[in-house]
């Protein structure tokens, strides 16, 4: 689809032929790039290149799924949560499974953008922008589920503490309320972080775009960025501060989500391993999603120069490491159940491994514990098709993990008389698949209208000496800086 993109781009440029890839490269940006070529290559996707036909097809398909989601939500609002598969022992079903799954996916974005920034890992630079965007979109999808699960989403503001005519505060001792704060903080900080990072790039787009509308829209969003030294100083401070704010969120958000389970006394939930196990699982699934998105993006938009094999290898290694932690979590769940000697815990584990949902359990072990072991091999890590498939498998595995945690613990709890089975209905599945479409639609819109790789940060990776005409570029910058009103 976009592989023919460069040839259709501005005719004055020679046709770029992608060089054969160096699979074992250690570079985080291919040699030979200059400040100008970095800027052009990234901003052209948004500004000058013809929108590839594949983009329209992809957005079209995703948008159909958005329609499915809206249809499902509409039906839910008219008929109530009874259309879902929920029943008396299994009061938490797809809504919570999908919520945890989506929130978890978001974590990679924050980890890449905040923690790796604070750790000075410069390889984060080319993937942080779309990883952060992915975080935002995943959190948007995640937020939908508890909102709809409350049954009357139009009263969801009751979850926030505010002076009200009921003279009531929310229940501060409930982890479900902690979730409200954790997720809304997370969404706010992620949005700010992403937006602040975008400002210099928005100014670049403002200055390079030719149409008046684009200039105005990007100009408003750029908030009067003039590339001045003082701007940069403030920008760096703000960005670091936000990174400092976001870094603890990587750990805290999924910890609080795990409390939804750990604070309850249900067998299989009431375990101290939950927080670290959930956080590792979140990073695991998040990196799998980044890899799932990065591999097609770099191929279709010819970004192999910026998202090199080094990036993919590093992400594969993070997946391997977090996969090992998650596997340790699975082992510890079994060990704790056995060591506790508690009848209910033992039943829970036996039921997971050999009960009604044993197929899902063993699939999850295969997807999350066994398949990622392939990543020990460098040949697997550098093979794009394999890496892509493994990432998809991990995404599926992490969904199954949440399904197993939620459903197996609830459907057989303490009272055998209340045991029941659970399965998602058409409306459960349509809403879940619909949010995947929603997520992908947002990703498609994002790569079309915003630079998917941080231009300003990529420029910093280019050795200044390689810039052919630094003097001229400086003057150009100061000239273009006149363009933006504040």
């Amino acid at each position, binding site marked *: 689809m976009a592989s023919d993109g460069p040839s259709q781009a501005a005719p004055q440029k020679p046709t770029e032929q992608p060089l054969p890839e160096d699979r074992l490269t250690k570079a985080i940006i291919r040699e030979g790039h200059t400040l100008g070529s970095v800027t052009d290559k990234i901003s052209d996707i948004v500004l000058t290149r013809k929108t590839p036909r594949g983009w329209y097809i992809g957005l079209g398909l995703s948008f159909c799924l958005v329609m499915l989601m809206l249809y499902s939500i509409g039906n839910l609002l008219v008929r109530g949560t009874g259309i879902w598969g929920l029943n008396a022992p299994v009061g938490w079903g797809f809504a919570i499974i999908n919520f945890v799954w989506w929130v978890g996916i978001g974590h990679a974005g924050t980890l890449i953008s905040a923690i790796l920034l604070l750790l000075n890992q410069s390889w984060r630079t080319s993937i942080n922008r779309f990883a952060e965007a992915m975080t935002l979109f995943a959190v948007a999808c995640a937020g939908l589920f508890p909102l709809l699960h409350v049954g009357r989403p139009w009263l969801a503001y009751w979850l926030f503490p505010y002076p009200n005519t009921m*003279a009531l505060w929310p229940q501060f001792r409930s982890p479900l309320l902690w979730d409200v704060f954790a997720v809304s903080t997370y969404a706010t900080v992620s949005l700010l972080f992403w937006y602040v990072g975008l400002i210099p790039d928005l100014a670049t787009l403002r200055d390079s775009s030719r149409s008046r509308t684009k200039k105005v829209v990007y*100009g408003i969003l750029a*908030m009067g960025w003039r590339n001045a030294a003082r701007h940069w100083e403030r920008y760096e401070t703000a960005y670091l501060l936000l990174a400092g704010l976001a870094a603890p969120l990587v750990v805290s958000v999924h910890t609080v989500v795990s409390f939804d389970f750990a604070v309850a006394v249900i067998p299989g939930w009431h375990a101290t391993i939950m927080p670290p196990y959930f956080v590792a699982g979140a990073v695991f699934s998040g990196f799998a999603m980044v890899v799932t998105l990065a591999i097609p993006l770099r191929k279709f938009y010819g970004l192999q120069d910026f998202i090199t094999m080094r990036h993919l290898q590093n992400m594969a290694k993070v997946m391997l490491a977090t996969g090992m932690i998650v596997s340790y979590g699975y082992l510890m769940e079994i060990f704790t159940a056995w060591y506790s000697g508690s009848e209910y815990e033992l039943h829970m584990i036996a039921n997971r491994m050999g009960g009604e949902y044993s197929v899902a359990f063993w699939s999850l072990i295969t997807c999350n514990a066994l398949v990622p072991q392939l990543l020990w091999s460098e040949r697997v890590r550098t093979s794009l098709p394999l890496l892509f498939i493994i990432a998809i498998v991990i995404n599926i595995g992490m969904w199954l993990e949440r399904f197993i945690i939620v459903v197996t613990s609830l459907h057989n709890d303490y009272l055998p008389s209340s045991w029941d089975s659970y399965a998602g209905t058409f409306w459960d599945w349509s809403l879940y698949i619909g949010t995947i479409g929603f997520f992908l639609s947002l990703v498609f819109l994002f790569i079309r209208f915003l630079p998917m790789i941080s231009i300003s940060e990529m420029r910093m990776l280019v050795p200044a000496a390689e810039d052919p005409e630094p003097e001229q570029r400086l003057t150009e910058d100061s000239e*273009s800086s*006149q363009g933006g009103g504040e």
Partner: protein
Amino acid sequence: MTQIFHHSFNTISRVSIFGAVFMAATLAWVGDRIHRSPYMTQADVVRAQPVPFSHKHHVQGLGLDCRYCHTTVEESAFAGIPPTKTCMTCHSQLFSDADILAPVRESYQSDRSLEWTRVHDLPDFAYFDHSVHLAKGIGCVSCHGRVDEMPLMWRENSLNMDWCLDCHRDPGAHVRPKERVFDMDWFPAERRDDLVEEYEIESLTSCSTCHR
């Protein structure tokens, strides 16, 4: 290269960014005020009725007791709306030809109830029992206001949950001796925490007290 924005945008953008906080706060405040206003709560709003019945005339003027019409107020959850028969005990003799009372006579003859507009209508998810409030020394006037001074009926209080809880969280400030519950113009001069003890009033604030 021309300027994209006029220089006044510097001010506009600053004002709009900083102003957004105040705008949001103002909107929240306005929303809250509307939510507590008579427009939403119907407090102080006179409701149209099939017959312009005056509590002021019947209670203050004639000295009828509340229980003459609201007969079940002491033993049931519902205070009771009088049947047309109760009106006709007097109005078969007094003002028996008055136009204003035509719907009453018609109701009596056709044996079909007058359709009064309920002024104090709690939502169905809130359980309320008149009898226990009277038995524990809460006067009619505490909730319904000076009904004896209302020519036409209105809701004296918002009936919002925080208003219920004002008393449920601090009954001592509102309780009165049992013999005073039907008194419209008697108010306790001071807190009566002694009565709270004497009447064994538990200030019930658990959710299921009212939301059963």
